[in-house]
């Protein structure tokens, strides 16, 4: 077990290094002079020159990269040019917000998607199955910004049930926090719910056709026991892996949702940083997201390892 974990962690290191190079390289490919973008409307040459000097923008690219990596290894992700705040502090402040949003979204997706998938598989080719498929297809095909705005108009403007946007920390007021987060979490979960539903359905259909399920039924076991104890346990394994990937996807999907609902998380931070050419923030956020993504996949592998006895053999 320990060897397996150590090997997986070691494999992750070159991935993170590769990601750091790609992140750094890609944003340098962004057209436009960051110093010019940051200098304000006046475009004072003295200000532009100072920005280049202070943020090493006048150095060769490889040197800029080494300076950045050197600082990152010392725990310094740099300073936001726009906000004059350490990127580490921004990441620390924003990460829990996006994590909460993504976790709530995945919870909603699990609570809706998996039962829908089970029902859909068990009641195959019945109106229930068709309805579940329609819901799933809608979840995938409706753009989240549209769904978000429609939900705001319905639940905030017309019904007045929920705040249209904003964020309250759970430590300040848990109920207000949930009120502000429920709509964005639902919007964010729409695609994942549909994916969970589709995957659970197909996995369940495959398992329900297998010999051991037939045997279980032949033994006279009751249907719920067959479905939940025998079929679902096996069918859920690929869904666990998918869940980890989806959690990572949700972190990036939060970019749009946070923008619509004005949730001060990672997504909003990165969008603002990209438009303002705040390179240090972009690099820091993407590096943390990529590291988180790799970590989640590592966790999924470990869960897989625990859930599936064959892996331990």
């Amino acid at each position: 077990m320990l060897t397996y974990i150590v090997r997986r962690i070691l494999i992750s290191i070159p991935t993170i290094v590769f990601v750091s190079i790609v992140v750094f390289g890609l944003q340098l490919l962004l057209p436009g002079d960051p110093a010019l973008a940051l200098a304000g409307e006046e475009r004072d040459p003295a200000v532009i020159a100072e920005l280049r000097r202070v943020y090493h923008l006048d150095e060769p690219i490889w040197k800029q990269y080494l300076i950045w990596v050197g600082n990152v290894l010392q725990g310094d992700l740099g300073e936001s040019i726009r906000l004059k705040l350490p990127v580490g502090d921004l990441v620390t402040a924003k990460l829990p917000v996006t994590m909460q949003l993504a976790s709530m979204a995945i919870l909603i997706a699990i609570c809706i998607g998996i039962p829908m998938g089970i029902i859909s598989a068990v009641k195959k080719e019945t109106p229930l199955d068709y309805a579940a498929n329609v819901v799933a297809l809608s979840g995938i095909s409706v753009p989240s910004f549209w769904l978000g705005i429609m939900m705001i108009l319905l639940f905030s403007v017309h019904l007045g049930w929920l705040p249209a946007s904003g964020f309250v920390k759970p430590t300040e007021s848990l109920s207000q926090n949930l009120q502000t987060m429920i709509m964005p979490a639902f919007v964010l979960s729409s695609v994942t719910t549909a994916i969970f539903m589709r995957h659970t359905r197909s996995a369940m259909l495959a398992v329900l056709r297998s010999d051991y399920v037939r045997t279980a039924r032949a033994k006279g076991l009751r249907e719920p026991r067959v479905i939940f104890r025998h079929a679902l346990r096996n069918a859920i394994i690929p869904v666990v892996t998918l869940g980890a990937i989806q959690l990572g996807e949700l972190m990036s999907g939060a970019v749009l949702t946070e923008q619509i609902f004005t949730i001060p998380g990672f997504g909003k931070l990165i969008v603002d940083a990209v438009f303002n050419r705040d390179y240090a923030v972009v690099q820091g956020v993407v590096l943390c997201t990529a590291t988180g993504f790799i970590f989640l996949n590592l966790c999924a592998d470990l869960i897989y390892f625990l859930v599936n006895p064959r892996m331990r053999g």
Partner: protein
Amino acid sequence: MKRVVLPLLALGLLTSAASAQTLRIGLAEDPDILDPTLARTFVGRIVFMGLCDKLLDIDKDLKLVPQLATEWSWSPDQKSVTFKIRPNVKFHDGEKLDAEAVRYSIDRHLNLQGSFRRSEINVVKAIDVVDPQTVKVSMDAPFSPLLAQFTDRAGMVLSPKAAKEAGPNFGAKPICSGPYKFVERVQQDRIVLEKFKEHWNAGAYGFERVTYLPIVDGTVRLANLRSGQLDMIERLQASDVAEVKKDARLKFVSQTGLGYTGITINVANSDRAKSNVLAKDKRIRQALELSLDRDAINQVVFNGEFRTGNQWVPPTNPWYVKSVPTPKRDVAKAKELLKAAGVTNPSFTLMVPTGNEAQQVSQVVQAMAKESGFDVKIQQVEFATSLQAAQKGDFEAFFIGWSGRVDPDGNLTSFIACDGGNNDGKFCNPQVTAALAETRSTSNFEQRALAYEKIAKVNADEMPRIYLYHATLFYAMNPKVDGFVAVPDGLIRLSGMKMN
């Protein structure tokens, strides 16, 4: 059921009573650092209106009015200006605001590393404390726009004690002397200010708290106002204006801004200018202008809500040169001018920063110019990239706007002076250079206006930039919000505002 509903209703009543004391303003962006020296965004200036008092302010007619300086006077040679500082003013940390604090603040704006104020007031060569309530600011040469600079961030006075202690981190907890003091900021979520009871004019401010909430999406910002989450929003989208005007549950306020949008022509910047047909002959540029119907652009793209114009200030501005009015569209004359210039179907590329409105305007321009024989190719470029291309001279015509400054010098000099930092087309004219110097050398309105008239005439003839329109600033609010006066600089002044 009753057990649940009654406490909820009571809670609702308490919440609305508390929120009546709080003004919640929806901002179109998240401000950058809240340090008047280091800040650079427009939206940040809105927040500073609550936090930091300035030496001077402007009213809705763009007249200078006292704020921290109660009086000011120019020296006879126009090289220095003396300010009398309001007595008995305190900073939020309880420190006294005096002439020394003013000297310190201007010096900080000039010398702090990374200052964005330096370029605004770099003409200042000395700041002398004459007595505890008097400061004299001196320059090497006359520069009349200086006073206007002190109506904005360069005129904001910071607590020297707090600024020295905080150093470059001052913006994390700014201490000024404004009507509201800083409470907290959650990046990208909210900025909360609380009434400063010891403010010299505290009675004029009706709210106990002001919360600024950045909500980037215009539709969501409006939805928040409609749902009662906000009391007021700035930069209402032009497309929502008609709907808001009809809605009895909302109040609409508008004001023509200080800025402009136009087409800058590359007349002499880099090799691209040499091949630019628009740079070959001023008659081709004049023909392009005559091809355009500014009112139609305004109607089509902005529902007629903006103001058209042909100068660097809108026709409502006291500095607008009335003797050079906006020409009417005249396609026949445009064709004649093209014929006289020896071209019939001039083709050029119009570089347009990405964005719906810019794209729509450029398409209307393209269609109108085509009727005179112009072949306009639209090149959509991301904003930061377009700025870089413009500076390098890698463009033929550039569709670009300017947010505007209180003094017309700020809308003109850097765009038209031979060495101007924003003169992307590298237009250079000795008559203009002389007139610009004249405008700066005197604070006399009539003399300055005469110099601007000369520049307006040159611009109308040489046409290095075709001014198209001036954006209108739109605000929407809860009808109970009273006392808001829209000023052309677009900032939300909290003085006199209250909830009815």
